[in-house]
């Protein structure tokens, strides 16, 4: 078990990639805080983790809200006393709109949630990691942050911003033994692409990658577990693309 007794917080941990990460962390021996806007679903993932024999708790959180994130951090420290691994998965994708039709509200909401969440969560947990001179932060960006996508300018900008944030934070906290990296998934078999595509469209897209496989949440979770482990102690400031070969940055 590569993460024995480490304490991990996974935002967006109730479903999709976040859920796969939370379960993977638990299987590797970590104590997991499943944090999600959907508190009930988070609880059921925490229950699943406990059934696997892992220590786990669930917390409802709005990652774009400063005081809500503070409460999440307090809950983590109350329950487990420390933080070793922070995985920022929570984020939004919709709505689909061309730049000229995109409302200010939708722009703000996407940037606030996808980028602001990284700021709030890291700001809460970095001091504790700094004090213990170790920590791992892994943020979900997206291949779309590298290559762009029409009608998703807000999402592309937010995910590119996550990569920039990760690099800057990596430079800030590197001397304290904390690594900060981003993972950029391609289109994965989750509910997210189904928000604006039919099932046939989603599956056709997922099957159109160079590798003859469909990108599953577990395919994204694996590299995140690697980055969280001791094996990745010398990796920081990187944005690794995981996409079955659909894009090579």
């Amino acid at each position, binding site marked *: 078990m590569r993460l024995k007794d480490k304490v991990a917080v996974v935002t967006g941990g109730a479903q999709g990639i976040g859920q796969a990460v939370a379960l993977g962390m638990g299987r590797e021996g970590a104590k997991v805080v499943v944090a999600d806007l959907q508190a009930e679903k988070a609880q059921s993932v925490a229950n699943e983790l406990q059934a696997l024999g892992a220590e786990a708790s669930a917390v409802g959180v709005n990652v774009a809200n400063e005081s809500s994130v503070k409460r999440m951090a307090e809950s983590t420290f109350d329950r487990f006393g420390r933080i070793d691994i922070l995985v920022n998965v929570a984020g939004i994708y919709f709505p689909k709109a061309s730049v000229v039709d995109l409302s200010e509200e939708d722009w703000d909401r996407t940037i606030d949630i996808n980028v602001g969440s990284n700021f709030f969560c890291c700001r809460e947990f970095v001091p504790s990691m700094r004090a213990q001179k170790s920590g791992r932060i892994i943020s979900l960006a997206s291949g779309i942050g590298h290559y762009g996508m029409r009608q998703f300018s807000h999402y592309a900008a937010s995910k590119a911003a996550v990569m920039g944030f990760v690099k800057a934070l990596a430079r800030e906290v*590197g001397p304290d033994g904390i690594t900060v990296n981003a993972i950029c998934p391609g289109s994965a078999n989750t509910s997210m692409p189904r928000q604006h595509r039919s099932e046939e469209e989603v599956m056709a897209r997922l099957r159109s990658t160079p590798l003859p496989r469909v990108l599953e949440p577990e395919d994204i979770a694996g590299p995140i577990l690697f980055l969280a482990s001791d094996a990745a102690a010398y990796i920081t400031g990187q944005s690794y693309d995981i996409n079955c070969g659909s894009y090579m940055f």
Partner: protein
Amino acid sequence: MALITGGGGGIGGAAAARMAAAGIAVVIADYDGAAAEEVKKQIVATGGKADALALDVTASREVKAVVTDVEKRFGRIDILANIAGGSAYTKRIEEFTWAQWQEVVNANLKGTFLMCREVAPIMQRQKSGRIINTASNYGVTGSALRTPYAAAKAGIITFTKSLALELAPDNVLANTVAPGPTDTPRVMEKESAEARRQRWWPNIPLGRTAVPADLAEMYYFLTTPESAAITGQTFHVNGGLVMP
């Protein structure tokens, strides 16, 4: 099983040892046959399965003979890690002879091509395989006084992407590892630990140069089921020195 070129060197030896520790049988190929033999001894002494052989990766006949022999002995090749390479020169472009330029480009880029050309068809027949090539952060940033080396390493990155696209339909993955400054025996012969500390450490967010084991973990990760959806990518392992 894994075939590892440059397996007698610092990074190659560490990668071989890491894979062997995970139960992978390794064939350590190196221009310096004695160095390969030494790594083999250490791995075998700790209970790993290893073979050693001398190989000049720029000699196409040698490459073909070795790959044919390895496939015959093991019945398959699951992993090819091309780690052989490097550069003996740091000097201005006008001081490079054509022969020296070719020497550097061939040791890095041509060697990688020749190895992949022989091994890829075997992996395609198996419908599985992992190819891991080795670039350098210089392949992205460039480096004064290392024009052929930086060019060759940039070439390896794009060669690997192209190869990944060619081999993907057969479930053969190809990725690149890009090390930053790493304390290998070869570089430590030329530069003292103190000189390296002064030159590099202030510029590296994680505050130190790499040790070969740091890189070995990435090579090993790229052989595991956890990296099954990754191909054509470049993995920089450099303590934050370069964040492309």
